[in-house]
């Protein structure tokens, strides 16, 4: 008897992690050089997904320092030694920073505790005084260097509310070439320096997005659901659903 079920039938309906991974992957183009840092499971999955679908020649760089690794099992930590499996070279963080400085890094993934209308992020401090913050945040993790230098910056955040998406961040840790922002509710695209709604995820209303966002928005069409091709690839690169870990 055949033991294997059709994965398209066996798997549950695409969830928000699947959709966010697909949206992030769609931000990448074939042949580009893309980088993610620490604590970045969704970008890790998205890069591997893009390489398996529309961008086989994408160059995958990461904080650990590998080039196009082929991990046999996806780690939860995005600087795990699993990301050194089958790498042909080491490309350390200092190399990535130098690459960006000379204009050779196409896409970098970042996030922010706060993200504002202009695509600026705050990873440093909440409150009016940097020296005496209400909350000391984890720190910029190189974003101040990379965001103005990478050709495109893709932001993602698994929490979308008015504390996160604010009109203006209380401290600018970094700003730069933000292209898109992917959240559980929607995709923002930066147009003329300001984040505008590009699409709203299935099952989410415009009112819900507006309610959760600290600046006025205009309606937008629905985000295309992950295709069967994208879902097949997603389950192939991330069968253990590391993409869920950020939720």
């Amino acid at each position: 008897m055949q033991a294997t079920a059709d994965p398209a039938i066996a798997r549950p309906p695409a969830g928000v992690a699947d959709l966010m991974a697909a949206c992030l992957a769609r931000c990448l183009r074939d042949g580009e050089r893309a980088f993610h840092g620490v604590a970045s499971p969704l970008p890790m999955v998205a890069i591997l997904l893009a390489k398996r679908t529309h961008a086989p020649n994408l160059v995958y760089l990461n904080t650990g320092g590998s080039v196009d690794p082929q991990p046999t099992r996806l780690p939860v930590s995005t600087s795990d030694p699993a990301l050194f499996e089958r790498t042909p070279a080491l490309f350390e963080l200092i190399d990535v920073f130098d690459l960006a400085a000379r204009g050779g890094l196409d896409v970098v993934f970042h996030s922010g505790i706060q993200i504002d209308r202009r695509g600026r992020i705050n990873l440093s401090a909440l409150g009016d005084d940097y020296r005496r913050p209400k909350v000391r945040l984890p720190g910029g993790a190189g974003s101040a260097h990379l965001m103005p230098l990478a050709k495109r910056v893709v932001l993602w955040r698994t929490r979308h509310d008015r504390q996160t998406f604010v009109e203006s961040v209380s401290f600018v840790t970094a700003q730069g070439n933000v292209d898109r922002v992917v959240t559980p509710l929607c995709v923002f695209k930066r147009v003329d320096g300001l984040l505008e709604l590009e699409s709203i995820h299935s099952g989410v209303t415009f009112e819900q997005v507006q309610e959760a966002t600290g600046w006025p928005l205009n309606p937008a069409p629905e985000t295309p659901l992950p295709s069967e091709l994208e879902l097949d690839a997603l389950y192939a690169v991330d069968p253990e659903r590391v993409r869920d870990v950020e939720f």
Partner: protein
Amino acid sequence: MPLAGMAGSDLLTASGFRSVADPYSGREVVVIPAIRPDVALLHVQEADEDGNLRIQGAPYEDVLLAKASSRIIATAERIVPRESFLEEPERTALPGFLVDMVVEAPKGAWPTSCAYEYEYDSGYLTAYASAARTQEGFERFMNSRALKVEVLAGHG
């Protein structure tokens, strides 16, 4: 770029290098303009078909020069299987995504040396140096394919 050293050298004036006051310490620091070559030409011992390069022996500044350049073209003594780089990634001098072209060129560094492969060809270089004292001698030497073949053959 700020550069430590060079204090008191006539090269500062000869090269037109300027100095600025370090805004933190107030000390004078030499600053030099970055060199951005269009093309870097490298010879390496081993490359794979993805352009990953392995340099054996003294690396000199090859990697720095290459990374500063807009394009990288490498000649290699040998093209080796991709698997060889996957087994020892820490020995890769330059990742393939930075390299534009690889040419398989055994003896590609001749008449200079290539570490662990061959030494420099002093006979050829001496013959060249004496021929090149005049323009005519230089041209005769450079057009003398026979000499090149002879010396190559002599080297084995």
